[in-house]
């Protein structure tokens, strides 16, 4: 249905079938079972938009974007804590590609695994937005935590489109993706449980989201630049050479080293500086 309003006739910005599926997820969480909604798709297909709309439909109130939308795993852990304190019942973990199979042995993945094993006691719905769902750590699927996948595609200026898959069909998608040369073709080979459209956010809300998203992406870009230049903070240097952060700071002051880069009040040093500090060991 073509409309310029924020919602369709039934009051939601997406099809009624998705509303019923959200109710089912709600019921599952209410009985203390862990549930997660995955939203994937290419860049610009409306994953975050749909995530916000689904979250607002779930909690029947506007989202506190500052505290309920997290970019990346580290922010997610911090904001999950805030959501628990404020008794919010939904959180969006955007850019969730950092929680992937390849990092299965990292402490980061282990921390997140632990969170996903235990967060059901707080009765919070987690919505994960990422480019392709099959990169996620397999342990999530083995524990049957993701219940619904919404694959976004073919977004236009007026609306986006999605295909909804159950956990059962997600396993088929994963299997097909392993074999295909072009993995995204799997979405056309496995029949979804339902199709639908979703409307764009209102301009004001969209700007708010865009600012937050840009801020988050700027942060990611900045940290990547720092990493690519081989710069390290005092705590990272300490971790590398087996000393405390305070020990490193004392040596930096003693040696009169100056930071190569400062970002968010954090000083970063070059490899040469690190080698000089190492000689003090």
């Amino acid at each position: 249905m073509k409309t310029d309003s924020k919602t369709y006739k039934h009051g939601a910005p997406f099809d009624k079938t998705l509303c019923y599926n959200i109710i089912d997820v709600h019921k599952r969480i209410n009985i203390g079972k862990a549930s997660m909604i995955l939203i994937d798709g290419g860049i610009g297909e409306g994953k975050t938009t749909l995530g916000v709309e689904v979250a607002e439909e779930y909690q029947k109130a506007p989202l506190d974007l500052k505290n309920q939308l997290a970019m990346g795993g580290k922010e997610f852990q911090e904001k999950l804590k805030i959501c628990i304190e404020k008794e919010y019942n939904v959180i969006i973990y955007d850019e969730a590609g950092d929680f992937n199979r390849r990092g299965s042995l990292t402490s980061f993945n282990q921390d997140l695994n632990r969170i996903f094993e235990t967060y059901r006691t707080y009765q919070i719905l987690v919505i994960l937005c990422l480019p392709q769902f099959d990169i996620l750590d397999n342990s999530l699927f083995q524990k049957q935590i993701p219940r619904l996948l919404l694959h976004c595609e073919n977004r236009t200026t007026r609306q986006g489109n999605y295909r909804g898959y159950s956990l059962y069909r997600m396993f088929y998608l994963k299997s097909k993706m392993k074999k295909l040369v072009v993995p995204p073709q799997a979405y056309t080979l496995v029949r979804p449980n339902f199709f639908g459209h979703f409307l764009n956010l209102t301009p004001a809300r969209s700007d708010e989201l865009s600012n937050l998203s840009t801020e988050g992406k700027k942060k990611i870009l900045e940290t990547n630049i720092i990493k690519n230049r081989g710069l390290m903070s005092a705590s990272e240097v300490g971790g590398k050479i087996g000393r405390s952060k305070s020990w490193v700071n004392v040596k930096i002051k003693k040696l009169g080293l100056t930071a190569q880069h400062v970002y968010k009040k954090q000083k970063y040093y070059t490899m040469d500086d690190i080698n000089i500090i190492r000689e003090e060991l």
Partner: protein
Amino acid sequence: MDTKTNEDVYTTLPPTDILKINLLNRRDNVTSIIGDYMQKFYAGGSPPGHLVLGAVYGLLIDIEAQLNRSVKEEEFKIIARLVYSKDADDSIKAFRKINAWFDTIKLTRFDTSKQYDTSRAENENRFKNL
């Protein structure tokens, strides 16, 4: 020393299962007779309908009590009227109604997969034990 053995131990089907099997055999017989009748009819002949009448009549006697209990009174009267009309075409109509009733009581149903609403992902997950 007395030891228990499996000799003289009989296995048997419950009476309801035996009745169902008999009913299915009889239904199969009626279907064959109607098939033959229609074959001759389409071949341009005017076959006698007494075999059809007799077969459907016998089937109705088998299921009369249960049918009377299961379906509405008007429906039962219609089926009975069709069978007793002594017309082969009416008997075939009656047999089709009886067949439909067999399907509702799941006697002849073979598409036994459980039905669930596939547009609800959680329904499917639950059905598939996930």
